[in-house]
């Protein structure tokens, strides 16, 4: 057996183990006081766009991440999101919502539940009005003080704001920026929802920060209704909750499911086998390649 064949076998065995491990258990949403509590991530990027994972694979990853619903929100386009929703009709799994990260130099706005691209070249209040006209909800994305496009007129019409986002783990300044922004939004619109989002692009962080949505009906319409009416709790990577204390208490009565990665040992084994096998295939494959001088 040649070294290259051995490496190919290593790679194949890694992929086989990884594929066999890929079985996320079916889960039922928590039910408390007449609400179903869905775990959601409303800020996710995918290919084609500045995310790397395709819309098809994203839904499987959402299932693994223990999500019941997610919105695909690429920058200023809804192509990938519509592809994801189309693909979702073929199988059972998490609810897929069409979204867009309306990306303006002065603000980033998550539009969820839309059908057409929202024009990003306008003030935030006008973009929010466009989102509402399409029946969607508008959420301020990572609203740190670096974004200057949020005036009172825009904030009072927001349906939600990201209170938990991976940047809160980077710096306490960002954490307080997001908390203050949400408090100000909440004062202007008491129904504004706290949102937790992963903003996943090229890392395995889907659902790491997430939103627990208290729905009366586990459907896209039910999720949008809950966000419009402030029935959410945001959660960060450390499991810290942001939101209405009554809803947090309801949430704490159950144990929300997290990721379902299966056996850590076998997952690591599959990674090491596939990675080292591929490295060997590259190196042994190129050793008999051309030499240029």
């Amino acid at each position, binding site marked *: 057996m040649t070294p290259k064949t051995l490496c190919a076998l290593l790679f194949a065995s890694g992929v086989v183990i990884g594929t066999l491990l890929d079985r996320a258990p079916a889960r039922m949403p928590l039910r408390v006081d007449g609400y179903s509590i869905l775990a959601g991530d409303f800020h996710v990027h995918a290919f084609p766009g500045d995310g790397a994972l395709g819309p098809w694979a994203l839904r499987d990853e959402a299932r693994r991440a223990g999500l019941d619903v997610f919105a695909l929100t690429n*920058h200023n386009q809804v192509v990938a999101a519509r592809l994801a929703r189309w693909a979702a009709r073929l199988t059972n799994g998490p609810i897929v919502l069409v979204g867009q990260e309306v990306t303006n130099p002065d603000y980033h706005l998550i539009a969820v539940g839309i059908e057409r691209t929202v024009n*990003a070249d306008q003030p935030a209040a006008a973009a929010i009005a466009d989102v509402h006209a399409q029946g969607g909800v508008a959420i301020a994305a990572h609203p740190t003080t670096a974004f200057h496009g949020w005036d009172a007129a825009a904030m009072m019409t927001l349906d939600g704001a990201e209170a938990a986002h991976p940047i809160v783990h980077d710096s306490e300044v960002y954490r307080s920026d997001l908390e203050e922004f949400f408090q100000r939004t909440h004062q202007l619109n008491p129904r504004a929802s706290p949102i937790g989002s992963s903003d996943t692009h090229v*890392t*395995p962080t889907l659902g790491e920060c997430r939103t627990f949505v208290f729905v009366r009906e586990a459907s896209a319409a039910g999720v949008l209704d809950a966000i419009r009416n402030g029935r959410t709790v945001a959660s960060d990577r450390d499991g810290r909750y942001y939101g209405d204390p009554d809803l947090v208490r309801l949430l704490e009565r159950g144990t929300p499911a997290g990721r379902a990665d299966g056996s850590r040992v076998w*997952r690591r084994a599959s990674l090491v086998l596939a990675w080292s096998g591929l490295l060997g295939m590259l190196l042994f494959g190129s050793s008999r390649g051309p030499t240029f001088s």
Partner: protein
Amino acid sequence: MLVRPAMFLLVLGTAVSIMLTRRPTLGVIAVSAVFWSFVVAWQLLAGAAVIASAPARRVGLLRGLDLWCAGYLPYSLWLLVVAAVVEVSGEAPLVLFLCSALIPAAWTVMIAAAFCRTVLATTTAGARWRMTLHQAAMLGVATSYVLWGAGGYASVASFLARQVGQR
């Protein structure tokens, strides 16, 4: 002729699978390889243009393309390293990745320039202008895709300004 491009796509698909799902699965590798195959298609197109521009070349177009694809090795190794870093750290530090990408970029230019001189029998100056045009074409497409994916020029400019402002 298709072995090297297929190998690159395998690496690309596996890297995506590891970085985004923490495991190598057949479905994600296959779908990602198909989605990202436009990168290889564009590379092959650019390679064919470079090869066709050299009338004194020592090989035919197909063999030339096969040898041209040997230049995928640096980026293949870089992708594997990036995937390992994301798996171990759980993060994708943008600046580190962009800076580290200069290594395979420079290495690829050296391989491609040597390819021009040895296989295409060009002069050093001929190799240089071909590589300049090739890199400009690659950078142009990559930049266009990033700008489109990130929401446009103004958004990227403001993102970079915020990154600089933080430092």
